[in-house]
Structure formats: C-alpha cells, structure tokens
C-alpha cells in the first residue's frame, strides 16, 4: 500500500513538473506584457519598453526565465503581480482560503444532494418522478453558470433583501412551492393511490404551514432556530438515522440515537453559557465537535447490545447533526445585530465579495457575514454540479440493482431497506470515488466564473485578472496549485477506492 502510494505520488510530481514547463512555454506565447506600450504615443516609449524588458527579463531566452522561475518557486517565492506590484504570496494568503471555502462547501453539498436524489430517482425508475428529475438535471447541466449567477444576484439577493425591508407576502408563490413540494414527496415515496394522496396532503400542508409561519411571524426578517427548533430537528434526525441505518426493530440503536439527541439538547444550554463567557474561535468549534463525536460514540457504546457498532454509528451521526444545529442556532442569534450594523444597512444577503470590509463584530458575527456571502455563489455552483452527480449516481444505482447479488439478498428474505442500503448503496457509492476528483477540477473551473461575477478575491479571479494583464507569475502559481489539488484529489480517490473495495485492497 505504501509503495503504491509512493509510486502515485512520484508520478503526480512528475506530471506537475512537465505541466509547469508546458504552461510556462504556452504563457510565453500567449501573454504580451508590452501590449499597452506598443500603442503608447508618448515620446519616451523606447525607454519605457526597455525598462519593462529589463524588469521582466524579456531579453533572456524563455528557458532561462523558466529556470529562474522554478528556482524561486521551489524556494517558496511565488513572484510578483508586476502591474500592481503586489507579491503573489500576499495575494495568495487571502485568495486560497477564500476559494477553498467556496469550492469545498459547494462540492460537499452537491455530492450529498446529487447522490441522494440520484439514488431515489433510480429506485423510482420509469416514474414521473424519475422523468422529472432527469429533465431538471439536464436543464441544470445546460445552464451557463454566469447566467445563473446573474439571475441569482438579481432575483434571490435583491428580492430577499427587498422583502426583508418591506414584507409583502405573495401567496401564489407560497402555494406554488407547497404544490411542488407535495408532488416531489409523492414522486419520491410512491405507493398506492391512497398512500400517494396522503403523502401529498401531508407534504403540501407541512410546506405551506412552515412557509406561512415563517412569513407571517416575521421569521424571515429575524431567522432563528431556538431551543424548540433544535430539539425538534434533533429528535427527527435521531428517528430518521435509526430507520435508515438500523431499522426500528433495533431498539438499542433507536435508544442510542434518541439519547444522543437528548444529550445534545441539554448541551445547547451549556453551550449558550459557554458562548456567552468565552470568546470563540474555529479551533474551539473543532474541539467541541470532536467532543460531541466522542460523547456520541460513548452513548452508543453504553447502549451496547450485540450490535454495538450500529448503535455507535447512529449516535455519532446524531451528535454531529446536533452540533451543527447548535452552531447554526448561535450564528443566527446574531442576525438582529448583524443586519442593523452600519455596513449592512438592513440588506444582509450579499452579492459582492467574500466578506464585508471593515465589519468588526465578534466570532459569531464574522461567521454570519461569511455565511451571507457564501450563500449565492454556493447555490450557483451547487446548481451546476449537482446535475452531474444525480445522473451519475442514478446510473450507478441502476447498474447495481440489476446485479445478481441483489437478487440473492432478496432471496435471503432481507427487508427492502437493507437490500438497498446495505447491498445496493454500498456498491453503488464506490464508483463515486473516481468522479469526485474530476468534478472537483471542474468545480475549480466553475469557481473562476463565480468569483468573477461575485467579485470574490479568490484564486480564480486572480487568474482572470492576471491573464488579462499578462502577469505570468500569478498564473503559474494558480496552475501549480490547481494541478496539485487535482493530483491530491486523484490520490485520495485511489486511496478511498482501495479502502472501500476489498477486491482492490488485496491486490495493492
């Protein structure tokens, strides 16, 4: 295994090296640092040209410049964006976290959403639901991301901000959303006509009710979760997790999940106290999450029984979900303060930049600010790439459902839930490991446009401006980082594959 990884790593470095040579040569042709001077009418044009040639070593042959660049690069000096005179290292220190945040968040959400819907669509093959999902995913796939981004900016951001300032409820839209939700759940669950009708009525009423409550009670203006919301969601999560991963027959697993939920609700009170007295940081958050996971595992272990692992898994999942809920709840508690801050002026949904400059405020306000800025670009990226995952996962699931071992699992008398979750899903998720890296690369490409439109000072934007301004150093760094990320993604995929597929594990 180690030898295998070492070989892959060596290969990746080799590819990166060749990539750097080719890109440098290509950029040497594609960039024209003298373009503005060529048409410059000023009398001392030759001097200016000479100066610039000297500054950029343009009199040297390209391979000398490449070697110089490589020498600096391996020492960690990434050069300079010469037009603005900013060192690339300085740009990167803010650009990298910004981009990673964006791409990472949207990749995770797209995978979760896409995979779930793809699986359901495959299970409901040849139904209206399946056709609708197919159509929607094709539509998403065909959407140009810059077009979607502009639309989001215009409608979602401006519309939502306007609503927050001047609430007027459009009941047509509420009804429409409820209708779509009703149809969605009917399609996803299916069954006999009577069951369908029941599902539709429930889903319609629930959606309509929640929306109406949110709009009428002013929740949209002052979003919060509160202890009641946290409790309800925690218990619901415990229930769903038990149904999916253990089955309701396994009373211990259900007990463990519910205990984890209750403990989490209790922890909410403790956290309020903690958050009030202690200034928080990301490190604290991570520490608390680890603690929550440990507590979850302990609860599962204590419930024990023959299937200790199942109980522990359920409790840990619930703990994670509850932790995230508590975090979000606390972030939203700052909403009132945030939207009334001078720089926000009651228009909290941001359309530009990754953060509000000169905002001030504590940890929670910063988180909220980051969240409002991430909202639109993330939605844009998710909309585009979620379609790929849906299509892919649907195909993989259909393929697996036709396998002989699914028939065997049914012939053993396993409940359909286990046939799907344990036998089909496990196998259908494996090929995902091979498309995630590819899609991750595509996502970085998509981020270039998203960052341009939303004026995020990320790496993609750095690339676009540098390319337009013929600055070679930032582009080279961008290429190397992107290529490196792609290599890492591929390595992780190989590694994951080897871990989850026993057939590969042994050969490696």
């Amino acid at each position: 295994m180690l030898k295998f990884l070492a070989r892959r790593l060596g290969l990746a470095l080799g590819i990166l090296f060749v990539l750097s040579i080719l890109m440098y040569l290509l950029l040497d042709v594609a960039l024209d640092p003298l373009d503005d001077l060529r048409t410059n009418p000023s009398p001392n044009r030759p001097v200016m040209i000479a100066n610039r040639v000297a500054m950029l070593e343009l009199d040297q042959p390209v391979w000398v410049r490449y070697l110089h660049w490589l020498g600096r690069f391996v020492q960690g000096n990434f050069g300079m964006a010469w037009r603005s005179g900013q060192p690339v290292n300085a740009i990167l220190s803010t650009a990298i976290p910004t981009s990673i945040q964006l791409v990472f968040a949207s990749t995770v959400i797209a995978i979760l959403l896409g995979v779930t819907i793809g699986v359901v669509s495959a299970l409901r093959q040849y139904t209206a639901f399946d056709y609708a999902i197919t159509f929607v995913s094709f539509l998403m796939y065909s959407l140009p991301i810059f077009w979607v981004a502009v639309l989001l900016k215009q409608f979602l951001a401006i519309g939502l901000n306007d609503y927050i300032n001047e609430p007027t409820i459009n009941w047509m839209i509420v009804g429409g959303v409820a209708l779509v939700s009703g149809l969605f759940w009917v399609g996803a669950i299916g069954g006999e006509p009577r069951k369908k009708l029941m599902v539709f009525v429930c889903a319609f009423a629930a959606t309509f009710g929640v929306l109406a409550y949110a709009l009428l009670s002013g929740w949209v203006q002052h979003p919060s979760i509160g202890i009641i919301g946290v409790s309800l969601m925690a218990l619901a999560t415990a229930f769903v997790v038990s149904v999916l991963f253990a089955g309701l027959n396994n009373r211990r697993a259900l007990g463990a999940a519910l205990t984890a939920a209750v403990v989490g609700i209790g922890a909410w009170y403790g956290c309020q106290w903690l958050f009030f007295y202690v200034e928080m940081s990301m490190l604290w958050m991570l520490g608390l999450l680890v603690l929550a996971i440990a507590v979850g595992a302990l609860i599962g272990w204590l419930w024990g029984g023959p299937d200790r692992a199942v109980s522990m898994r359920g409790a840990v999942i619930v703990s994670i979900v509850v932790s995230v809920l508590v975090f979000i709840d606390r972030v939203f508690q700052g909403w009132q303060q945030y939207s009334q801050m001078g720089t926000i002026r009651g228009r909290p949904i941001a359309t530009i930049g990754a953060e509000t400059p000169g905002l001030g405020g504590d940890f929670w306000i910063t988180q909220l600010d980051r969240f409002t800025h991430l909202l639109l670009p993330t939605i844009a990226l998710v909309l585009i790439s979620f379609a790929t995952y849906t299509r892919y996962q649907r195909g993989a699931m259909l393929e697996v459902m036709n396998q002989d071992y699914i028939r065997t699992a049914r012939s053993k008398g396993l409940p359909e839930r286990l046939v799907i979750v344990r036998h089909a899903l496990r196998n259908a998720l494996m090929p995902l490991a091979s498309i995630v890296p590819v899609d991750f690369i595509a996502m970085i490409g998509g981020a270039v446009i998203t960052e341009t439109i939303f004026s995020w000072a990320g790496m993609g934007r750095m690339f676009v401006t540098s390319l337009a301004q013929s600055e070679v150093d930032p582009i080279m760094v961008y290429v190397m980082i992107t290529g490196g990320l792609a290599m890492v993604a591929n390595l992780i995929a190989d590694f994951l594959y080897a871990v989850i597929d026993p057939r590969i594990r042994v050969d490696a």
Partner: protein
Amino acid sequence: MTNYDDSPVRGGAAQGPQAEQAATASDPNIASDLAPVDAALTADGATGRGEGVGQAKETEGLSQGQIVRARFLRHRGALFGLITLSAITLMSVLTMGLGPIRGLWKYQDHTRSGDMVNGGEPSLRLPFAGGGFAIGDHPFGQDSIGSDYFALVMSGVQTSLFVMLVLGLTAMIIGVTIGSISGYYRGKIDMVLMRFTDLIITLPVLILGAVLGRLLDVIPIKLDATAAQREALKANMPLLLAVVLGMILWTGLARLTRSEFLSLREREFVDSARVAGASDWRIITKHMLPNAMGVIIVNVTLLMSVAVTLEAALSFLNFGIKPPNVSLGLLIADNQGAFATRPWLFWWPGLFIILIALSVNFIGDGLRDAFDPRTRKIPSDRAMKKAARELAAANPAAAIQEAK
C-alpha cells in the same frame, strides 16, 4: 462458461441461444441430417412461446442501424431535442443566411446601430400574454446602441452551433485516434499517450481554454501582422477558437475509446479477423471502430453540449470570441449591467444557450439508450397495473402474484 440464465430482464436474450427454436422454426429451408430430432425439438408451435421470443420478435429483420434508429425515435426526450435543435438551426439560417448567402431577415448587418423604437423593448407579442401574436419590427428588442437584437441573437446562435460542430469534430478526430492507438497497441505507446492525457486533464478546461483564447488574441500583435492578416484572423476567430478548444477537450473521449478498444480486443471476432489475416489497419477501421462508434457518437454529442456553455463562458470572460463576431456569451457579458433596466438583453441569449445545450443533451441521452444493448422497454407501473387487470379478467378464479 455458458450463461443459461433465462431471465428476460438480463441482456442478450435476443442474441442468445434462446432464439434458436423461434429462428429455426421460422425458416423451413434448413436441411439437416438430424431431421427427426429437429422435428421433435421444434415441434408444437415454437412461435411466440417461451422466454426471449418477445425480444427476438422486436428486432427481427432489422440491421443494427435500423434498431438504433427505432430505439432513438422511441425516446421522447431525444425527439424533443432533435426537433428543437433543428428548429433553432433552421430559424437562424433562414433569417441570417449562411456565410455569404443573405438571409430573409430585414436587418442583416447586426453591427449597424439604429434609432431606438419604444425604448428598445421587444415588439414580439405572444397570444397567451394578451394582445395576440405579433412579430413587429424588433421582436427581441434593441440593444443599447439600437441594433436589432433578433439579428444579434440569431448570429450568436450560428456562432454557437458552428463552434459546437467544429469543436466536436476536432475533439473526435484527436480523441479517437489517440484512444484507439492506445487501446489497440497497449504497452509502451499506451503508457505514453495516457500520461499525456493525464497531463491535459489536470487543468480545468476553462483555464486552458482561457489561456489559448488569449493566445489567439495576442499572436497577431506579437507577430506584427498586417491589417489584412488581422482582419482574416478576426473573421475566422470562431473557427480557430473551436479548433483550439477541441484540442483540449478530447481527453475524455480518448479514455473512453481506449477502454472500449481494450474490451473489444477481447471479443472473439477481432481474433477471428486476425486469424483470417487482416492487417492492424483493417482490424481497427473495419472491425473495432464501427463497434465503438456508438460510445463515441454519444460522447461527442455530450461533449458538444459542454462546448456550447464553454464557448459562452469564455466569451463572457472576454477570452473567447471578440467583436465584430457575435456570440451568445458575449451578448450576455456586454449586457449584464443593463439587467435592471432592459432585462430582455439578458434573457434572449441565455434562453438560446440553454435550449441548444438542453437539446444536444437530450439527443445524447437518446443515443446512449439507443446504442445500449441492455436497454429494454420496461413497462411502467401504470402499464403493469392495466395489464394485470387484463390478466385477471382472463383468469377470474386465479390469484395473481405480484412480482418484486
């Protein structure tokens, strides 16, 4: 070893030995020394009974191409895509002409500015919006300098379609060549070619595309080209861009062709051709490529849909097509600031990008189903229910077991 499974949902029923009885019985010309055995084995009306017969019937007397066509036309989404794409192509060619041929639309020069009519609003009226149907003078409105937007959008559509086709063709030629050489010869050549593919795949296409687009822009300046040369380059920008983008988008196709060739190599008809003394060239072109064509065509189609959005995105970033050429992406980029005041400048080009990409996607999906031998028409739940009622009516006394 043999697959004796006789389940009708799994592959190959029509091709498998199952069809033996049906096919033999339907052809009385076959002479055989084992006549009595034959007679006994094919006795009692082997027509329309036993598993597999249904499928055999479906494909009787059709060539591979005809089967694919029939399956494709059965795919509703593909049909929709085909009709929409044809309609769009026809509309843009008829109105704006093709190359030097003039079209029928009154504003042929989309660069010409004009007087603003009614604030540049679209004059197109559709019946359901009230006011009946009307095309008017500027159905899609006018842009900020008063040019006819319909002419602009239709020219942009032509550019998109043109880029799409050229790009698909370029990528196909490169990808199929590299993939088939790699898959057929394997060994060292394969290693080198695949590492090269890995190299290209490492960067997002958008990044490479942007650099190459910029290169096309810079080269004439750097080389101090004459004005005439620059003009010629500018006029052929869509072509150049499409070829250049094709040169980076072939990777997926090469990998697919390679893996298809690797699996085709294991098929016995390739060995059979080799035993017959066919050359490598003949085996590749006559035996393997035609059999890989299904996969190739499907993926070229899907690649084309990517091409449409990629070209638009590059033009939007200003690394793609430049004026005086028109592109849908460029139209959106030029007019995104005007969204609040003149939203139609934003809607129309976006609508056509989506329609083209969506149609091509659906066509690709239809082709995939049509070429996939495993695709079967599986009845929907509703059809099954109706059929079950029929069955119940025929056997009123019997209980009926639903299938899993």
